[in-house]
């Protein structure tokens, strides 16, 4: 297993449920932490670090969210990245196949490793966790 500590950042609670079920039914033994927007996810990372814990090793990030959306999260993440000793992999997981979004993701090549389009499939999960 490539990742053991996973953050899912998405304002859609149904998506939280789906991810949980998909991991479970595919025997991927990971218990992700769920956050409804970018700000909460940032606070999650901060909390872990404050407690002296390791930050997550994978973040599945939605784009369209209230308070702090995916792009804003990435902007903030850029700023704190240097303080994090560990490598964090970030995948965007969005339902948007809009060119503007796909192009914008390329602007964050340093932070974003890949762009997954919803609906997420079992194959996607296998690719993320095993390949």
């Amino acid at each position, binding site marked *: 297993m490539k990742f053991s500590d996973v953050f899912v950042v998405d304002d*859609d609670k*149904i*998506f939280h*449920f*789906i991810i949980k*079920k*998909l991991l479970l*039914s595919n025997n991927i033994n990971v218990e992700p932490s769920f956050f409804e927007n970018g700000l909460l996810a940032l606070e999650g990372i901060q909390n872990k670090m404050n407690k002296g814990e390791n930050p997550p090793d994978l973040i599945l990030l939605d*784009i*369209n969210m*209230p*308070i702090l*959306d995916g792009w*804003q999260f990435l902007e903030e993440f850029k700023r704190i990245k240097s303080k994090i000793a560990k490598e964090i992999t970030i995948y965007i997981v969005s*339902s*948007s*196949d*809009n060119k*503007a*979004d796909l192009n914008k993701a390329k602007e964050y090549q340093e932070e974003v490793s890949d762009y997954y389009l*919803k*609906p*997420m*499939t*079992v194959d996607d999960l296998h690719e993320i966790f095993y390949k």
Partner: protein
Amino acid sequence: MIINPSLQRKINLENEMSYKKLLSRLPDLIFQLTYTKNGQIVFPFFNKAVIDYFELSKEEIRTFNISSIFKSKIYESDFLQLLESVEQLNNLDSSWSFEFRAVLPTKGLRWFKAVANVEKSIDDEITLFGRMTDITEEKEKEIHLKLSEERFQFALEASTNGVWDLDIKNDRVFYSSQSMKMLEFDEADIIDTHQKWDERIHPDDLDDYQSAFNKHLLNETPFYENAKRMLTKTGKYKWILSRGKIIERDDKGFPIRLTGTHTDITELKQQEKKLLQTLEIINEQNGRLMNFAHIVSHNLSSHTSNFKMLLDLIEEEKDTGTIAEIHNHLRTSSNALSQTIEHLKELVDINTGVVQKKENLNLNLYLNKVLSVLSEEISNNKVKIYNKIPKDYNVSFNPSYLESILLNFTTNAIKYSHPDRVPEINYDLKSDKGKTLLEIRDNGLGIDMEKYGQKLFGMYKTFHNNTNARGIGLFITKNQIEAMGGKVEVESKANVGTTFKIYFNNEI
């Protein structure tokens, strides 16, 4: 000196002989015409040139009946007029001239001019001594010139273009009647100097005009061309295109004369403006279409992808409790999808003008209406309302849009009021660059404009941890304002408050 009379006679005779010789050999046609007492016109003398002039045939030379020759060759009307003009000669006339046309066998139509001295004998006979010349070439030139002058004059009058002619040395300009008409001047108005024309140029266009003109004077441009606004006699501005060229220079090469045209391009400019406006509308609509495409990709696909994933799960699931849970989620997704579709329908309606009927509405009245609808919320939250909108101000707007907009801004101001202070909402009518705007200012939570400014009016955008927020209100509001030809701007500071500015477009 004594002259021998017999010798004198001889010389005279010889002279007479040589005169006759001379006369007969002269290339000009020499003639004598006598108008007799009894009213007859006879030609006692012609020199030989008459043969060539009128292309006489051998037969005509033999019989030499001059009046029948003339009758057959000279235009009938011209011949009759010729005779008439001779008959009308009176005692005082000392000279006579007449122009006439003749048709000759080979030369065709020719113009002749007869010039003669008039002499009157004691017995009241009138005799003309004179010569005829072929003036066909001069006549043709004259006719040609007259024709082209007439054509030019006609072109000047018929053309919508005006003509100007500038004499730099004497500082004089000629403006054709069309040029004058463009500025609503008539012949009585005198505009004959550069200055009198130039002072009517719109101040904003003066620099461009002068630089274009000087560039041509300095030979930097092959011709001069400039479009500018000019004040007409009645105080309107018209767009006039002026083109010209130096046509004369002095010995040193300095320009001394320029000539050119004026064209009224006001209509063209207006159409250009309309075209630009249309382009703007297209751009705007294009932008909305893009926005719509964005909404679809973000908000519709998220629901459909949920369906797909939930259906995948339900196929594999055996536990009835989990299946029921998945069903629940399917229902939630279905409801959310329906609502998004409703919102999109509303958006399309706003943008396609299904309900865009504009009416003249009293702004103060409508605001009071909305405030009374919200009276409970206002009193529950102890909101202070300051309505400073003049009672007589009307806006041209769709009534339900106006209500919805005022309702939305007001509820937002209440919803996001600051917990530490008494909420205040100010409604004010202001003007900015000639446009009237409604200002709605609150002292609420405010928004970090740097972070959220661009997204404030987006669909499903919420910025505060407020569970009531759906993020649709401002999006719909903005679309309604824009559908009415207006626009909305926002100024805000976190923890200070928010000001919305709604610009109205009262052109119907």
